[in-house]
């Protein structure tokens, strides 16, 4: 069964450092998303991506965040200068025909 994969599973970084979280969506899907879940809180939408551009982004997705689909398979989320409050689980998702599939997540810890 096709699945969304994410790397790394856990990323520890120092405040102010850049991180890149990687995702491989399901191959024939066209819509891609990043969500995050701060410990104990709800899953929050960050950004959606379609046809090589951002289609929607939330208030959380400020100038420190960017997304890219550098090739035909990877979908990345970059946080340029991490803050303590960026510590969370980051989930990638891809969607086709009203079926959203989530990856296992990357746990980002900012020290």
């Amino acid at each position: 069964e096709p699945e969304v994969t994410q790397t790394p599973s856990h990323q520890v970084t120092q405040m102010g450092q850049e991180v890149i979280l990687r995702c491989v969506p399901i191959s024939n899907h066209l819509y891609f998303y990043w969500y995050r879940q701060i410990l104990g809180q709800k899953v929050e939408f960050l950004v959606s991506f379609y046809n090589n551009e951002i289609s929607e982004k939330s208030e959380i997705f400020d100038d420190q965040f960017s997304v890219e689909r550098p090739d035909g398979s990877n979908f990345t989320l970059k946080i340029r200068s991490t803050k303590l409050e960026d510590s969370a689980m980051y989930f990638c998702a891809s969607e086709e025909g009203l079926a959203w599939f989530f990856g296992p997540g990357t746990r980002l810890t900012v020290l």
Partner: protein
Amino acid sequence: DQQVKQNSPSLSVQEGRISILNCDYTNSMFDYFLWYKKYPAEGPTFLISISSIKDKNEDGRFTVFLNKSAKHLSLHIVPSQPGDSAVYFCAATNRVGNKLVFGAGTILRVKS
């Protein structure tokens, strides 16, 4: 702005009995609703969905009911099994390619 609300943080049910998880929404533009199950340190896993043109959808032990006039949906699990113990998220959207809006989740514990 809590467009999707799950007012019960947790639910405890005896094995074999019915689990009923509730969800309310405020945005009348939502027309598609989903339930996800999530274990710790894993991503949300799709369980069942329902379109706004229906009031019920069933898949094995899982049934989702939608009451559009009340802006309320519920997930019924029967019979409940210990392996069902997880966090259950209700989510809503209004078109293909659009974001999912999640509720806060309900922790279900099924006791054997």
